[in-house]
């Protein structure tokens, strides 16, 4: 089809879709007036049920913990897919690090980033944040290593084998807690009652902090593997 005919066709289709969407959006009433079934229950009895102050982590890691299990498997699947596609036979040459000043400053900064990510992971149920966000920050450390100090440095510090081990460890803690839920209290991924202490303290929300920790490790290691396999300078394979 001729270039301009195609362009006009596309533009007209977009306008048509915009109108269609606009027509239907008019019908959706404002949210305040709508029936709020599940959210009323969660807001009112979220704290007492799960013991976690942050209701979003309560939803994520207790009410709908199965979604988060599915979610972490999505990352697990993406990681193994990416490593499968980008695995190279040859040992890649290390990417050049940045200048000396950057290396020194990051030498100082990295422990604080690690501390911050651990804070975000463990305080999932008290302050905003949780397993996923903390895990990503954890991955940022490995990304910094491979950018600033060169991927060989990152290879030496946390070799992909260590990362896969960490990832599977995280996955197993999550799955293990679920299975413990079956053994102890009859339901998969049940929030284990015996672990809850006074609300507001670090280990207050039953199994949520441990699940957070497992997911954090898993997501951190997984995304580190993704970035490591994408960053390495690659040559045309020979085999």
């Amino acid at each position, binding site marked *: 089809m001729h270039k301009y005919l195609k362009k006009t066709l596309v533009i007209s289709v977009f306008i048509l879709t915009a109108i269609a969407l606009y027509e239907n959006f008019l019908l959706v009433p404002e949210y305040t007036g709508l029936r709020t079934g599940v959210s009323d229950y969660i807001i009112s009895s979220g704290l007492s049920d799960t013991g976690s102050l942050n209701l979003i982590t309560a939803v994520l890691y207790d009410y709908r913990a199965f979604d988060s299990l599915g979610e972490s498997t999505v990352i697990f699947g993406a990681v193994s897919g990416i490593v499968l596609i980008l695995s190279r036979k040859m040992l890649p040459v290390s990417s050049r690090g940045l200048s000396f000043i950057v290396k020194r400053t990051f030498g100082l900064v990295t422990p604080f980033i690690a501390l911050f990510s651990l804070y975000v992971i463990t305080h999932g149920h008290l302050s905003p944040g949780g397993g996923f966000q903390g895990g990503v*920050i954890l*991955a940022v450390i490995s990304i910094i290593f491979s950018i600033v100090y060169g991927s060989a440095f990152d290879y030496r510090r946390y070799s992909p084998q260590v990362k896969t081990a960490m990832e599977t460890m995280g996955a197993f803690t999550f799955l293990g807690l679920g299975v413990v839920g079956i053994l102890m209290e009859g339901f998969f991924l049940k929030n284990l009652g015996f672990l809850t202490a006074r609300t507001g303290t670090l280990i207050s929300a039953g199994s949520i902090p441990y699940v957070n920790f497992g997911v954090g490790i898993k997501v951190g290691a997984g995304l580190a593997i993704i*970035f490591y396999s*994408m960053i390495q300078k690659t040559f045309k394979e020979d085999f």
Partner: protein
Amino acid sequence: MMTATVVLENLLLIFLVLCAVMSVRFEEELISIIFLSTFSIVLTALYLLHRAADVALAEAVIGAGLSTAIFMSAISQIRHGDSD
């Protein structure tokens, strides 16, 4: 008179759309990715305005942090054989 937050929100929304348009228009991938990261940072600010702290943190870390890193590494791998 519209309160300060509403004005801020409208401003941010305009900035949001601007970032998206710029990111799509530019031919050079590097520029569009940088605009994409600013797009997600503005989005974090908007989420904060809408009282969604967790989502804002996630968007900041994943949208601005991780996606940009992955896009950058992808561009560095791409070998432009002939075009530009």
